[in-house]
């Protein structure tokens, strides 16, 4: 899922301080899982904002809502009748949700309340790591199920580089060397042959480098 982390409260306050009616809108999807933008986080942020403005002696209404998802118009539509009461929204959904909210309610000021970070998975409660870079051409079949585009700091495809030590990446002792992981997995699977053949240059045009992407499934279109 998409992992995000809460923005510093000071930054959010800076953007909304001149408004009088704010809606804090959460999302019960990915950001709820990484405890950055779900209903719980909506309540905590709203409480913090109320306290801040009370101290500033500024009268302000802070509403709270959390939608099933903010990346589907059907769910955003649920706000249709109540959003008029507000003059700004702090959306603590991921970047896609914030944009959809802003697009659907285009007259409304919509501010992001989280920094969207990566596609990843839950290692353990409270720890999430990046696993996928959405490069558009998945090569996991040849790397034992471990992605070098996401897990190698240099996204090299003929790794490792010469900088790893003790199985950790040169940039950070906490980051495992992606290629060491791949090597060990291929060894475990008896697929070291894959390791020996040079992998030619990747086609990055299916990745972000090719421009904003679009997926159409015709059979699903009405």
């Amino acid at each position, binding site marked *: 899922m998409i992992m995000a982390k809460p923005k510093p409260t000071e930054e959010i306050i800076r953007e909304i301080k001149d408004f009088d009616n704010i809606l804090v809108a959460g999302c019960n999807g990915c950001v709820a899982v990484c405890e950055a933008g779900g209903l719980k986080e909506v309540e905590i942020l709203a409480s913090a904002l109320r306290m801040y403005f009370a101290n500033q002696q500024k009268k302000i209404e802070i509403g709270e809502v959390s939608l099933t998802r903010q990346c589907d118009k059907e769910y955003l539509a649920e706000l249709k009748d109540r959003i008029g009461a507000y003059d700004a929204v702090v959306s603590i959904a991921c970047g896609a949700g914030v944009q959809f909210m802003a697009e659907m309610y285009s007259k409304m000021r919509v501010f992001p309340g989280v920094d969207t970070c990566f596609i990843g998975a839950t290692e353990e409660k409270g720890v999430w790591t990046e696993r996928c870079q959405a490069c558009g051409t998945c090569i996991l079949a040849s790397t034992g199920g471990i992605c070098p585009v996401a897990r190698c700091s240099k996204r090299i495809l*003929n790794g490792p580089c010469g900088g790893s*030590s003790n199985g950790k990446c040169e940039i950070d002792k906490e980051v495992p060397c992606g290629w060491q992981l791949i090597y060990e997995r291929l060894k475990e699977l008896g697929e070291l042959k894959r390791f*020996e053949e*040079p*992998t*030619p240059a990747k086609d990055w045009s299916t990745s972000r480098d090719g421009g904003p992407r679009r997926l159409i499934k015709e059979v699903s279109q009405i």
Partner: protein
Amino acid sequence: MSATTPSKLESILAAGHFAVTSECGPPRSAEGTVVDEKARLVGPYVDVINVTDNQTAVVRMSSLASCIRIKQLGFEPVLQMTTRDRNRIGLQSDLLGAGAFGINNVLCLTGDHQRFGDHPNAANVFDLDSTQLIQTVRQMRDEGKLLSGYEMTVPPKMFIGAAENPFADPFEIRVLRLAKKVAAGAQFIQTQCIYNMEKFKLWMQQIVERGLHEKVSILAGITPMKSIGMARYMKAKVPGMDVPDEVIKRLQGVPKDKVAAEGINIAVEQIQELKECPGVRGFHVMAIEWEEKVPEIVERAGLYPRPKVD
């Protein structure tokens, strides 16, 4: 083995001599004469001079520009290229530029992550990795084609090199990795600087066992230790570096004003010892910010004067 490019390094190796290469770090300014001075210092004592490419992701005068200056002084450069800062378009473009100035050696590297440099906030490129760059240079030279398939009227003729670090882990894949680079087209290898002689010899043994030493020329990396501080720093802070305690102890065992000289002694002894090591075809003497010692090291190691080849 006869040479296929105009590279002097290739000719020297083909003739069966030990090759001697060294390195020049360009300045952090537009002052070209710094490069000239370093080149003049080491030039007569080596076959070719490497120019680093924004080493440790620190902005320096470009390797290509520095190589051109070196070439114009009458010495032969090795263009080091990392894939960190330029995509395949930029890299191929620079290779054409290098060819236009008669530069015939390229060392293909991935490059240190920009986190180590003075612009850690930069976006990195890594469109290609070092192995893919090797494949690209070979395709340009042997097929006359760019990666896109476009046919060049005059392709650059490059003698292709790569780096290897026998001391990075895991040790068992260091040989596999080298094999992969050779399969991609690497013709010479410059290794990371050696202090752990036993480990290096073990690596060489495995290379010889696979017959790789006949497909690629291995140049052993030698860097003299200038001070105990430098030894400690390299041991602790430089990724992929293996400095055994014995080396530090040896430096500690001499009076403070003799430490630098002892560092040179160690370097010379290493070269003498490695001349006997099967598969070693030459030496890459990296005297970082100590280029003035290269002549002494090369002379004392019995590698001066450099042989002349056509």
